[in-house]
Structure formats: C-alpha cells, structure tokens
C-alpha cells in the first residue's frame, strides 16, 4: 500500500487520528455484522429468552421456503427492469446532449436535479401519480387504453410502479456519467468513421457503444447495488412489498421478517446472505476501478 516517501515519525498520533473512524466502524458496522452471523445459527424461543444453536437450519428453512424463493425472483425481475430502464433512458438523453454545443449545459441542469430527491420521496411522487382513484396515470390508462390500473390489487401494476419510481430517481446519476464517458471519446474517431461513410447509427454501434463500455460496466454494477439495497425506501413508501408479496424484494424482506415478523434467526440468515452478495459486488466494482476495464 502506498505512503509518502517521507513520513512523520510519531508513534501514538496515527492511532489517535484513526480512532474516531475505527470506533464507529467497530461499534456500528463490524459488531452488528458479527451479531447477524451469530444469530443466523440460533433460534429464539417465543419469549425471546432462550437461544438454541440450530446450525444451518435457518438457512435450510430459508432456501426451502417458497416466500424466500419468491423474493429472489421478485428481486431479479425488479433489478433487471430498473437497471435496463434507468440505463437506457439516460444513455439516450446523454447521446442527445452530446450533440448539443450551446444548449448542453442548460439541458444538463434540467436533467440532473432528481439526484437530490430522496428515494422515499420519489416513491411518494409516483405513488400519487398512479393512485388508483385520483391518479393521472390510471385516468389516462383507463380512458385511452381501457386498462384498469390498480397497484393495490394487481401484482404486475405494483411492480411497474416501483420500477418506474426507482428508475426515475437513478436517471440523473447515470446521465452524468454517460455524458462524461461520451466526452472522453476522441472526436477524431467519429470523424474518421464519418469520412469512411458510416452514418450516425452505424457510428453509434461500431464506435460510440464499444468505447463507452467501461462507463456502462461501471454504471451497471452501481445500478445493481442501488436496486438491491437503496430501493428499500421506494418499496416502503409505495407498496410495502405487496400486493401478495409481489414487490417484496430481498432487502425489504429482511426488514419485514425482523421487525414485523420478529423472526430474528431467519432475518439474520437473510442478512448474512445479502452481506455476501454486497461483498461480491463491491469486489467487482473495486477491481474495475483499479483497472478501468480496457478494450
């Protein structure tokens, strides 16, 4: 690991400087994480007084329960849809802004502010728009397309609602990174292709998109992490996992099973599985950052 060529010689000072961060990390991160691992091997009796060691039983039950398998399925559908929607829309917008010479900055300002909107607030906003009795979208869907929207009853409607809210919130983030990625592509490459007779669409597929792949890969990982963990607030503010578990994603289920169901062993086992998942994703992200994927 890198340090400076010359360093300070003090013995105690560096520990003092690190202390606040390490204390907080220890108490609020490492200790709870260790507790989660410990609890995942225990079962609590109904009064919360006795714990029995049950080995991997909590995990086995989890992987056998149809509800957990459903949560995995729901999470996969939710993540993939949100990521595709958020990346697709922001890429199109970034490509359009990249053409603009003078108005680019103004458009950027108008497009980036949703980054500052809290996921919970984003959820509330879309929940209002899609409200089955007074919402504007159900009204349009009913009168123009004859579709009876009700996310309180129809699982697929609920899923669409949370995907739209989650993706809306993420568009500005992706947009900024795509714009930066596009700007780093040398114009000479596109000009050379244009001279060789490649039209705008051909240039996009053969030059822009491949050269944008590092940015896209980076955003892919960041967006997956976002959909898996940070969308908790979107779900809680809109559907609360319903109807009939249709939007009960893994991270929300940990919360429900722990605080509402009071099933600590199962919740802890779910926590441990999710921690494993986060670690894998973070390692992928870091290896990428170290190397910046070359083509």
């Amino acid at each position: 690991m890198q340090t400076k060529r010359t360093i300070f010689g003090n013995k105690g000072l560096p520990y003092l400087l690190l202390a606040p961060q390490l204390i907080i990390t220890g108490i609020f991160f490492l200790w709870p994480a260790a507790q989660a691992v410990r609890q995942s091997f225990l079962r609590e009796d109904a009064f919360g007084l006795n714990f029995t060691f049950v080995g991997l039983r909590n995990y086995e039950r989890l992987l056998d329960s149809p509800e957990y398998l459903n949560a995995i399925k729901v999470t996969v559908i939710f993540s993939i849809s949100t990521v595709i929607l958020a990346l697709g829309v922001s890429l199109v917008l970034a490509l359009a802004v990249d053409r603009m010479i003078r108005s680019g900055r103004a458009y950027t300002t108008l497009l980036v502010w949703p980054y500052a909107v809290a996921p919970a607030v984003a959820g509330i906003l879309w929940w209002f728009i899609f409200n089955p009795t007074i919402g504007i979208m159900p009204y349009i869907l009913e009168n123009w397309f004859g579709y009876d929207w009700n996310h309180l009853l129809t699982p697929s409607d609920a899923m669409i609602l949370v995907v739209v809210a989650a993706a809306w919130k993420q568009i500005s983030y992706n947009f900024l990174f795509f714009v930066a990625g596009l700007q780093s592509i040398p114009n000479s490459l596109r000009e050379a292709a244009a001279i060789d007779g490649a039209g705008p669409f051909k240039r996009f597929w053969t030059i822009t998109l491949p050269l944008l792949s590092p940015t896209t890969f980076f955003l892919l990982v960041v967006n997956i992490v976002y959909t898996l963990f940070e969308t908790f607030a979107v779900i809680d503010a809109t559907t609360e996992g319903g109807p009939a578990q249709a939007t009960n994603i893994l991270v929300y289920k940990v919360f429900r099973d722990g605080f509402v169901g009071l099933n600590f062993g199962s919740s802890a086992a779910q926590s441990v599985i999710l921690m494993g998942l986060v670690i894998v994703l973070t390692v992928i992200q870091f290896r990428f950052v170290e190397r910046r994927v070359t083509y």
Partner: protein
Amino acid sequence: MVENQRWLDYLAHAVLILGVVIVAFPVYVAVIASTHEPTAFTSGTIPLLPGANAVETYSGVFEGGIAAQMSVPIGVMLTNSMIMALAIAFGKIVISILSAFAIVYFRFPFRVLAFWMIFITLMLPVEVRIVPTFEVISNLNMLNSYTGLTVPLMASATATFLFRQVFLTIPDEMMEAARIDGAGPMKFFKDILLPMSQTNIAALFVILFIYGWNQYLWPILVTTDDSYQTIVAGIKRMADVVDSEPLWNSIMSVTVLAMLPPVAVVIFMQRLFVKGLVDSEK
C-alpha cells in the same frame, strides 16, 4: 459535430425536451397539488393547473395539527433534517480526513489492517444488517437522540478513500519543506493539507449533505418520538391513513418542502455537485 444533419439536431432536441418533461412531471404534479384545497381531490383526477389555496396549505403545515397525521409541525421536521444532514456531512468529512491523513503520512503497525477495516464499512449498508444494528443502538440508549441519528452514519470508506487519493497527489516536497521549516504533523495538516484539499472538501460536503438529508430507514429505526422526526421519514406516516382520505394537498406540500433544500443545492452548486459525485465514485 461530425456532419451537419439538421434532422438529427431536431431529434436530439425533441428527445431532450421529452426527457426534461418526464423527469419534471412528478414534481410538477406535486407542486400543483399543494396549491389546491383538500376537496379538490375527492372526485375525478389530480388537477393539473394551479389552485388558489397555496398560502393556506403551506401555512397550515407549518403550524401543524391540521389533522392527526399532520400533528408534527413541519418546522420541527425541517430543523431535524437540517441538523442530521449538516452533522453527518461535517462529521464524515472530519473523521475521514483525519484517518486518511494517518494512513498516508504515517507508517505504523496494523496500518493495513486499519485500512481494511475501513474498507469493509463500504460493503455493509444498514439495510442488510437492520436488526442487529437496531439492537446495538437500543443497547447504547441512543434511540430518540441526535447522537443516534447521526454518529453511526459518520463512518464512511468512500470519503476516506477520496482524501487518500487527494493526499497521494500532493507532492512529497511539500511535506519535506514543511519539515525543514520545523512544522509538526498537525501544523502541516492544518496549514498545508487542509487548504490544498479545499475544493474536494466543498464538493464532498455537497454530496454528503444530500446523503444525510435523504436518509430514510435510519431515522425510522432510531426515532419513535415525534420531536426527532425528519421530514423524509415523516411523509410516509402522513400518507398512511387508514379510515379517512389522505390530505393530499398537505402531503404534497410537505413533499415539496422535503425536496427543496437538496434540489436547491444541486442546482445552485452544480459544479461542486458534479465534482463531488464523480470524485466519490473513484
């Protein structure tokens, strides 16, 4: 541009205008809704043109107590959110700049271990270890307190990494010169490192302010007492009414107020915001 194709320019403008409209639409609807009377929502659909009730709605939510679910005056929640956002942003910066300084400018036993302990925090968001984290704060008697609301969120690997990168780019000669002039480590830190990382600190502050303001799960876990409620966590409670119609105009005015400070920060400090966002992802 590569060649002059008018239709592509028109297409790009059309796409962008459509994008801006889609992105702004939910907020437009919320602002409009907050200017109407509660009765405007009992029949038909959400109004799309402004109403005449804006002043009443907003003064109503500031006074609080319009109805059971609006019992917490909005001023209290805004203050709590502001305290939380500022404390988290400030605390994170102080804590991580100190630890980055220790890691870069000193060599001591367990340095690599300390680095990895910090690294690990990045991997474990609160959401995945909710129950045990809640137990820790309740055992430490930190429920319903500003300490519980802010301190546990102050450890951040991202900020430490960012400052580490910044320090590594500062030439070694700086420090050698400082040492020759007889400056100790803390003097060097205060007189050279801090001024040299000013823009990074400002950029990070913008991002962390937004992060702190937008916290949702954490305030829900830590606060049950209304006087510690933050605005983002409070909206949900207002919208959750079982036996009566939600007061849509009030809920939407609270939503607008919850968005205003962080959105203003992004719009008015766009350059710092973009820098902070890009830096903290490196």
